[in-house]
Structures are given as structure tokens and as C-alpha cells.
């Protein structure tokens, strides 16, 4: 009985350890992706003065055309 509890505790600890490690590795990898990937894209974007989000006010209307995709089996 006591042995089973120890095994369970060990398994639980191992699971927590692996979760912690994967969170750490994910964070490091995502940080690299963010700095390199998103950073370069952002730099290029700023250089070309392209606005991905429309942040400037307009004089007339803010309504724009709604253009749905007609390819329904696609995720985009």
C-alpha cells in the first residue's frame, strides 16, 4: 500500500517536472520565434510603412466591404 503511494507520488512529481521542463523549453523557443520571426516582420513592416491594424481615424465612414470566403472546407 505504502509502496503504491510512493510510486504514485513519484509519477505525479515526474509529471510536474516534465510539465515544468516543457513550459520552460516552450517559452525559450517561443521567445526566439518572437524576437526573430515577429521582430523581423515588424521591422520590415515599419520600413514599408504598412499598417496591419487600422489605427488612424477617417473623415467619412468606418464601414468596409465584407468579403467572405466561399471555400467552405478551408480554414481561411
Amino acid at each position, binding site marked *: 500500500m505504502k509502496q503504491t503511494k510512493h510510486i504514485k507520488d513519484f509519477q505525479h512529481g515526474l509529471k510536474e517536472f516534465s510539465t515544468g521542463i516543457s513550459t520552460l523549453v516552450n517559452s525559450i523557443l517561443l521567445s526566439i520565434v518572437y524576437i526573430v520571426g515577429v521582430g523581423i516582420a515588424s521591422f520590415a513592416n515599419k520600413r514599408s510603412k504598412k499598417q496591419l*491594424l487600422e489605427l488612424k481615424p477617417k473623415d467619412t465612414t468606418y464601414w468596409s466591404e465584407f468579403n467572405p470566403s466561399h471555400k467552405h472546407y478551408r480554414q481561411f
Partner: protein
Amino acid sequence: MTTILGISCFYHDSAAALLKDGIVVAAAMEERFTRKKHDTSFPINAIKYCLESQNISINQIDHVGFYEKPFLKAERVMAQHVQMFPKSFKTFISSMPSWINEKLRVPRIIKKKLKCKKGIIFIEHHLAHAASSFYQSPFDKAAVLTVDGVGEWTTTAYGIGESNSLKLHKEIRFPHSLGLLYSTITAYLGFSVNNSEYKVMGLAPYGTMDREKNPHYKKLKQVIDIKDDGSYHMIMDYFAYHYKDRMPSKKLCALLDGPVRNPKHELTQRHRDIAAAVQLILEDVMTKMLNHIHKETKCDNIVIAGGCALNSVYNGKILSQTPFKEIWIQPDAGDAGTSIGVASYIYHSILGKKRTAHMSNAYLGPAYSSSEIKSFLDKNTIKYTQFKDDKEMIAHTAQLLNNNKVVGWFQERMEWGPRALGARSILANPCNPQAKELLNTKVKHREKFRPFAPVVCEDDALTYFDCDNPIPLPTDFMLMVYPIKKKWHAIIPSVTHVDGSGRLQTVRPEQNPRYYHVIKEFGKLSGVPILINTSFNIRGEPIVCSPFDAYKCMMGTEIDYLVMDTFLIKREDNQKDMWDSEKYATD
């Protein structure tokens, strides 16, 4: 026969809906089964329920639809990160794992969980909203407006539906969002986002609802540029939601004369005025939009959907403040409702099938038979009595309510949507001045300012309420707030809000006969055929689904009696320390 399964998940309020030949035969939110409020996980339990309720397997489903286009949404999220680099670092790190593991793997997850090989149909989020409302409405032709936080890119859209065709013409795109403005103020007032927006709506009447006198209305108007055609643009310096996990920016806090309210601190008049100001701004924008849409579409019927369509205070003003003559909103106008929307869109717009019926009631969830309930009670040695028939059950329940008892009411199929509509409700006497306080503190464990809703038989509604005449159908789903006639304010104090209004639910006998007759019977005893109807749960918990949930909720609160089918359970007869509900009451 064509059977379609609609799914919405991975954002908030996961749900599934099943359509047979265009008619919704089953629909439920995942939270009711997992008991986790606003559950976002894959709605496997809701899907199982939908299939089992119709005795079919996944192989008998003709089409499976998903409520949004995940890659388009990912494009918007990436655009936010690129545009806001390096400010968006923290949200990038915290949000990316769920994108990689879930949101970009929707077809694989659906196929794996359901063991189904069919292709999945994806439609735009706002099309799903629009379809959920128009295709389930009683109108052959209607203007359509969808307003929510954000879908893929769209935050607001309008168009027109006619017969089995639905087109959205114009949109407003992220980061400009009326829903997110309301959510930002919800966060600023110390309430939880995507959950407590209705509390801000309930708090607003305690503030100054006069545009000239409210000190924060003019200030808050600085954060949004509203055009005469109802289109709008947020001044993004006041917001942080496009790059941070908090919504108001420091500049907004400075504008509103203070920091974000700590939820543990008391609400002050300043907070109430801010709640009133955001409600007024929402009303300004919505009215301008609806006037513009009417002008563009030249249609007298309007259907609305999206989270903002749950703003029942404004919904009650639409017909009097705009040229529209009729309105329809489906019971779950929020994201869960898009599961019905995508399935309806597939059936009518993609397959081109004709419309045959509209949604006339919201009872689409699981039901439990008398024998199932009896078996549950016996197995758990719960003391109960059984009425010999419905008549006796109705008469006895009405008597209990007239004696100021609080009654848990569990009958037949569970409601679809966030409101309890007489299938999983807590009922009480609205004439009892202590009822509101008792229900808020001892039963629901929620904030004292929050009002309770009245339920009235449809044929009595005009006697007590200043509603539109004829009474709009969304009142059946508790989606419209109307003034209570002045002479009744003192007679039904527990359902009369501080501004003299009530979020009424109307009931028709064909929708829910037991509920209808209890209200009528109570009217004979008390002289007022109105009851308090509040959802059968405590704060922070989903509405009860099964007999076990209902019994557990009663035993943990001060609900006096539970009426399940024709069984009566008295809490005092079953004193067991099953559950201290107060400690679980959270946002």
C-alpha cells in the same frame, strides 16, 4: 433527411447543436456537463448528448460545421503581434501554446475526438452569428446586425437575409469593437471580462443615465469616434487589449479619474456613473447603426446577434428608438449560439434548402424522465413526496411560493442559452420585499445591486409592463428590458429595478405548460401572476443540468423546496452537509 452538427469551441462557451432538416432538435453548452463555467474545451459531452438525444451515431451525420475560420483568426492575432512588437511579447508567449495545440488543429481534433472522417465546413464567425439569428427567426426577410468582441477580423457587420439566402454587406474590423469597449469598462470596474458584462448593464441604472449630467459620459466619448452612419473607430491609446492581457490603458485610467477598481473594494458613485456612461455610448452607437441599416436595407424586420445582442436593456428600446417594426434575437446570441448558426448556414445557404420552421422555444437541452429522477432519489436515500398529477404539483408549488418559500424548479428539457427560462429556474414571490436580499445573499451569493427578473404569462404582460405592443418574441427568451407600470412598483418590489424596469420573460402555454400554469395559479393566490425567475445555480457555477446538480445546489443554499418533475423534495427533510456553496461562489 439531412442531419448537421454545429460546433463552437476553444474561445469561450463551447457548445454543440444538431439540426435535422433545418430544425434545431438538440443544443447545449459544454459547461452544463463539465460544471466549469464558460468551458472552452472541445464540447464532447454536448455532442454526445446531441447524438444520443436523437438516437444517432456520428456516422449518420451528413455535415459537420465549425463556427469560425481558424487561420483567418490566426492571421489577425499575428498581425497584432507584428504591429505591436515588442509590447505584445507577454501575450505572444502565453497565447501561442493554445494556438499550436488546439486552435490551428481543429479538423484533426474533431476527427480524432468524434472518430469521423468527414470534411469539416468552416464559415466566418459573424456569418455564423448572423445565420444563428436570421435562419431561426420567423421572418422571411430581415436586416441582420451582428455585434460582438471580435471574430476573425470582424467585430460588427450588417447585411440582409431573405428566404434561404443570407449576405453580410459591410463590416467594422478589429481593433475597433463595441463589444471590446464594453468589456474594457467591465474590466475597469473590477468585473470579469467575457462573463460579467451583464453586471455593468445591471449597475448602469444606479448611475446617472442623463447624458448631460453624467460626468463620465463626455469623457468616455473621447475614446470612440462615432459617425452618423453608426460606424465607429476606437482611439487605441485608451486601450491595451490589442497587445496586453489587460484591457484599459493607463491613459483610460487617467481619463476616468482613477485606477482599475479592485474587486474587493466597494462600488462608488463614480463606478456607477462609468457603467451608465458606457451603456449610454453603446445605445448611441447601436441606434445610429440601426437607423443606417434600416435606410440601407429598407426592411422593417431586424435580427441581431453577437454578445452585444444580449444587452437586454438596449434591446427593449430598439423598436421605440429606430424605424424597425419587428425584432428577433435567438436565446443564445453569444458565441455558443454560433453552433446553431454554422449548422443553419450549411443547411440553407450552402445546401440551398428551404426554411420550414423557426425556433419557438429554447428547450433544447437534456431531459430526465420521472423514472430516472425517482431512481436518483431512491438510490441516494433522499426523502421526497410525489404528487399524483400535474394539477396537484402546480397547486402545491404555487402555494409554497405564495408562502414566500424559495423553490428550485427542474422540469423537462434544459434551456438553451445563458438564461433560465423555466426548466432550470429558482422561483420566488416577487411581492415579498425580502426576496431580493434573501436570494442575493443566501441563495445566489451574489452582489446586492443585481436585480431579479420577473416572469409573466404572455397574455398578462401588457397589464404590468410598458412593453412594445404586440410583444416582441425575444421576450420569451428574457432578452428585453421594459419599464414596469408605476402602480405595480410597490406591489412587486423584488423584481422592480432601481429605474423601475424589469427584464421580463413571457411564457406561452404551448411552450412550457407546467411553468405557465404555476404562474397563473400563483396569480390566483397572490393577485399578481408574476414570479421571480432566476437561474438555478450559484454565482460562478453553470446552471444545473441533472437531478444531482439540482439537489446539490439546493442542499448548499437556502432554497426551501425542489420540485423535480412531479417530485417534491424539502431541504429541511434532507439535512446533509453536502456542500457549502458560499465558498464556491466566485466570478
